[in-house]
């Protein structure tokens, strides 16, 4: 049992992430609003399709169209069709407080069960030529007293939908990979300092599992991209640079397999793994941040903050990193034990 607790901890943490990460529901959101355009002064009914909403069960449903922080109109009539479908009628004022030809309006819905949820730029209103600048018919700062969301729920993001749960697997895999590769580079340095073959074995094992996690990260990212960007691979900087970093690391495996002389192999692979790790940092962290990127967390595209990683997601994201790092260490440990045994037999035979 001694020395086994962290393996159990890793398994239990990953189980917690799997179960909790899959059963906690996503907050309510709006998937579509039809029609999505209108003319000023029109009386219109919009068909709203919600996701995870409870329009029928909710006793109080309110809806607004918001122009800016102080101008909004509230729905004149609300018709509930089903839990996820409702009709909202709005009379769009003929006069707007600003004179722009096309004005985007944000739909805000508040129910006593699901709390408040919004669809930005839900409706585009084209102003007629006779419209004058006036904020009459627009109520000022009347939106308020929103209902609270009950219980723990993950944020709803358009396009992402349920795939936001991939945060616990795809992103955590990369973080865990970094922990393993840092362990690999640490043992590589220790080997070069001491010349102790144990450090060579450890460095190789941590690097191997780290590379495996990196390959998992690329595959899972590719699957996620298929569902959100509708393509397995794009020529995005983040994707290409990460692929290059992984290729550099794959060359490490080739290098280790190429030499049968143990001392030479150990020295070469230790120095190469330091080079590969140093190359990984600019390729993954710096270059993608210097240009525009589709991938969150790069080039002015924020991630790990706001609704992409709120406190409910953090509840599973951080344990997932720890769990994957612990499981990775376990797998590395098995490789280390195997290699040590192999060396022992080799020495005995000589």
């Amino acid at each position, binding site marked *: 049992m001694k020395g086994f607790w962290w393996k159990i901890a890793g398994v239990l943490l990953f189980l917690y992430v*799997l179960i909790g990460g*899959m059963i906690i529901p996503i907050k309510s959101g709006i998937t579509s609003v039809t029609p999505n355009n209108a003319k000023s002064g029109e009386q219109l009914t919009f068909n709203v399709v919600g996701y*995870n909403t409870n329009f029928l069960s909710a006793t109080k449903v309110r809806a607004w169209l918001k122009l800016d922080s102080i101008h909004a109109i509230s729905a004149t009539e609300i018709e509930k069709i089903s839990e996820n479908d409702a009709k909202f009628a709005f009379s769009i004022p003929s006069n707007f407080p600003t004179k722009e030809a096309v004005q985007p309006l944000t739909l805000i819905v508040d129910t006593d069960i699901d709390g408040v949820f919004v669809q930005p730029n839900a409706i585009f209103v084209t102003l007629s030529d006779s419209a004058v600048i006036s904020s009459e018919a627009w109520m000022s700062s009347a939106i308020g007293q929103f209902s609270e969301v009950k219980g723990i729920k993950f944020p709803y993001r358009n396009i992402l939908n*349920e795939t936001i*749960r991939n945060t616990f697997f795809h992103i955590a895999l990369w973080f865990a990979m970094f922990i393993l590769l840092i362990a690999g580079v640490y043992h590589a340095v220790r080997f070069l300092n001491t010349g102790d073959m144990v450090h060579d074995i450890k460095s190789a094992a941590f690097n191997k599992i780290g590379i495996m996690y990196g390959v998992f990260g690329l595959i899972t990212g590719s699957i996620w991209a298929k*569902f959100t960007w509708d393509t397995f691979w794009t020529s995005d900087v983040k994707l290409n640079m990460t692929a290059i970093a992984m290729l550099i690391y794959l060359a490490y495996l080739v290098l280790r397999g190429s030499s049968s002389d143990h001392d030479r192999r150990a020295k070469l692979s230790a120095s190469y793994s330091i080079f590969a790790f140093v190359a990984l940092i600019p390729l993954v962290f710096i270059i993608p941040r210097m240009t525009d990127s589709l991938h969150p967390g790069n080039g002015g595209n924020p991630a790990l903050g706001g609704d992409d990683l709120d406190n409910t997601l953090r509840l599973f994201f951080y344990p997932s990193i720890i769990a994957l790092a612990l499981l990775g260490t376990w797998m590395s440990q098995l490789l280390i034990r*195997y290699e040590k045994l192999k060396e022992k*037999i080799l020495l005995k035979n000589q």
Partner: protein
Amino acid sequence: MKKFLSLTFISLCGILPLMAQGNSLDFLRSTGKIYSVVTVIAVIFIGITILLYRLDRKLTKLENQIKNEQ
């Protein structure tokens, strides 16, 4: 090992064109794209299984080596 790898490759060759078709992806996209998460977890699981399988084979080889020496 070679047999296993070629088997995985062949099964992947069978699955990928299926996935590329609109219909099966529509199924994977249903209920808020939840099946993408299932696919991701499956990939991690299959990967770890392959690692375990390879380690198993390597250990068997080592065991046989010890057995032959005795």
